[in-house]
């Protein structure tokens, strides 16, 4: 009996991600959700610019590689012209929460019927550990070498809370992939975010708190602990909006 | 034979509409035409003008530096374009809003109190079409029926109330004799 196998929607390729990086985990969860809903034949994924830029190689569905931050606009172009396709973006925090803020906010405002997988690891990974819009106050990065000073470098952006105020957003939940229990919650959230698209509910976003041991200068285990001890207090795990819940719950 | 016509006035006076009627009527007669509007933040209230060229041959520049015919509905447009009218050209001035007379001896000037005529006949906003009627009478650019047919076909069904007003306005101008 096979107890563990590769999801159909995940390509049989070795990931290029660093040891201890949680992108691989999230990729797997996305692929599992696509498999569970049996939508891989009509799914089109939009890859970002950032560590996950090669995501187009890792999913066994049609993929488009978008310019930095523009994935929600590209997704809009695909979804509006091919409404039967299931369209998702996979974006990091620099991509979505800095350069692509306008695109994600307006995709939400328009209620684009797409799914957004948003990786928040509080740092620019691919370019080598610079400060991100999601970097924590006091956090040291290569461009905040004295720690992020909120007086001069501003405050972290809480994307799920922000997007949950938009009428076009159907579902916004923040999860973490820091321990098995949280991974299971993340799996359920990601599947729901895809299911809501099949039901035509509007934009769904799952923000995934992820680790970046390489750029944080930690071991993988330390990094997962840091997600829980440092990130979750700033980015609480919660469902911020769920139009499918009883009474269309909105926090 | 080429006619270069500038229609000018305030935004909101229906300058562009009037120019379009000339261009469209000429097009339906198989002539070459171009219609070039001034554009920008002057949709209402500011200065508005358009250049209409009607020709037997293909039209080069759609821009008119020296009009053969000037239709001026406001004083600023009169002041701006009257000196540019080509020698032997025609001027049609809305004397309700243009108290001045052309001092040029080399053009033929025609005056019609279009705004007053419109007001007296309950045709608010009809000065443009009254001017067209007068222009038509003087120039015989088109047959009366051709022009009125085109004007009426430009009125959308949702604004059919405007049909009678436009008919009346064109006739008023056409029958005006100074």
């Amino acid at each position, binding site marked *: 009996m096979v107890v563990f196998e590769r999801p159909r929607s995940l390509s049989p390729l070795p990931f290029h991600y660093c040891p201890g990086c949680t992108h691989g985990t999230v990729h797997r969860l996305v692929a599992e959700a696509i498999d569970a809903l049996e939508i891989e034949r009509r799914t089109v994924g939009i890859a970002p610019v950032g560590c996950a830029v090669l995501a187009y190689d890792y999913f066994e569905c049609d993929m*488009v*590689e978008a310019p930095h931050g523009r994935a929600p606009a*590209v997704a809009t172009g695909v979804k*509006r012209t091919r409404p039967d396709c299931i369209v998702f973006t996979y974006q990091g925090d620099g991509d979505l929460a800095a350069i692509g803020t306008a695109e994600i906010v*307006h995709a939400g405002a328009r209620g684009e019927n797409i799914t957004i997988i948003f990786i928040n690891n509080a740092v620019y990974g691919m370019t080598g550990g610079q400060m991100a819009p999601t970097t924590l106050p006091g956090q040291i990065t290569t461009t905040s070498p004295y720690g992020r000073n909120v007086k001069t470098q501003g405050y972290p952006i809480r994307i799920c809370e922000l997007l949950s105020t938009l009428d076009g957003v159907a579902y916004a939940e923040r999860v973490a992939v820091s321990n098995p229990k949280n991974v299971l919650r993340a799996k359920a959230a990601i599947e729901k975010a895809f299911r809501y698209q099949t039901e035509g509910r509007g934009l769904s976003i799952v923000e995934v708190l992820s680790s970046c041991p390489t750029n944080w200068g930690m071991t993988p285990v330390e990094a997962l602990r840091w997600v829980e001890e440092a990130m979750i207090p700033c980015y609480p795990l919660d469902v911020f909006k769920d139009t499918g819940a009883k009474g269309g719950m909105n926090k | 034979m080429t006619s270069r016509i500038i229609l000018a006035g305030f935004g909101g006076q229906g300058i562009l509409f009037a120019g379009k009627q000339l261009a469209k009527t000429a097009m*339906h007669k198989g002539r070459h*035409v171009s219609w070039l509007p001034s*554009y920008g933040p002057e949709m209402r209230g500011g200065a508005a003008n358009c250049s209409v060229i009607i020709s037997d041959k293909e039209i080069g520049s759609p821009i008119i530096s020296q009009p053969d015919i000037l239709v001026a509905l406001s004083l600023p447009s009169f002041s701006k374009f009257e000196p540019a009218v080509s020698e032997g050209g025609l001027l049609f001035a809305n004397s309700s809003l243009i108290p001045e007379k052309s001092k040029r001896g080399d053009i033929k000037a025609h005056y019609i109190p279009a705004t007053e005529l419109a007001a007296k006949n309950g045709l608010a906003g009809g000065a443009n079409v009254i001017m067209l009627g007068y222009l038509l009478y003087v120039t015989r650019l088109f047959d009366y029926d051709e022009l009125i047919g085109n004007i009426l076909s430009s009125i959308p069904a949702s604004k059919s109330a405007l049909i009678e007003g436009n008919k009346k306005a064109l006739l008023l101008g056409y029958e005006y004799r100074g």
Partner: protein
Amino acid sequence: MSQKVLMKGNEALAEAALRCGCLYFFGYPITPQSEVSEYMAKRLPQAGGLCLQAESEVAAINMVLGAAAAGVRAMTSSSSPGISLMSEGISYLVGSDLPCLICNIQRGGPGLGGIQPTQQDYLQATKAPGHGDMHLYVVAPASVQEMAGLVARAFDVADTYRTPALLLADGALGQMMEPVDFDAALSVRRDLPEKSWATTGHGGKRKKNIVNSLYLSPEALERSVLSRQERYREIERTEVLCEETDTADAEIILVAYGISARICRSALEAARAMGIRAGLLRPITLWPYPRAALLRAAGHAKHFLVVELNIGQMVDDVRVATQCHRPVSFFGRCGGMLPTPEDVLAEIVKIHESIREEGA
């Protein structure tokens, strides 16, 4: 009854696109091209298509990218500052080999510039519309009728060679009305290749498609760039368009495109009436450029006069094309100022006199 309708250039290009099967328009309002999106907003829903007003030109061009990746005919239009914003997406469209139509109804620059007609984006359009070794198929209509016809051609070339096409017009052509005969404008139809590369969901019937412009291996990137260059060479061989008026016996040849060519046509008539042997060579494609026609003309013409609504952007292309066999002069206005035919005629007369003096 003629088939002709009186339309603005902006409306004619929109209607032509729709009739060419472009049912998807993404844009952001900007003067002097807003009629394009207004027209599309009215007509596309009736035609079963979609006109979406994006949050920015940046988003609009990326929506076009997504739609083009999904295999449909899609377009956007803007004016100069908006096109600058789109240059990122334009480069990605090229890198991803996606066909689409982009319209630039030019206004004055740099910066916010002005809203009156210019041709100040010639170099951007033909030399550097985005980063990387790239070109767009660039067409420059000179009448409202041609606005419609070149939309059709641009879409066909885009689909044939998997390249974005750019229609470069200006505020005057966009705003002016002229008669259009759409049947005549859209009479040429090509057999177009299947878009088997489109990302529409593999349906379990084929391998997955990837639309992408990233190549981490320099060898692979070079191969990709060079294979695109081969397509560019093919476009140069087969898709150049220009129009010559009275050039056969001309001593002085005017070179102008778009609205400047219209002004030149009037100047040309006046020059001929004065007995000056002048002609007009009007590039209709700005990339690829009609180099062969210019070189041919350089065989007999004595002098070239380039007329543009800018400070001299195409003039070097004329010098290169004519291989500097003949003197090339320039006359232009910018910022939204339009030269009159009389202004151009004065330049022609000056050149004519200088030729006579040399001959004497």
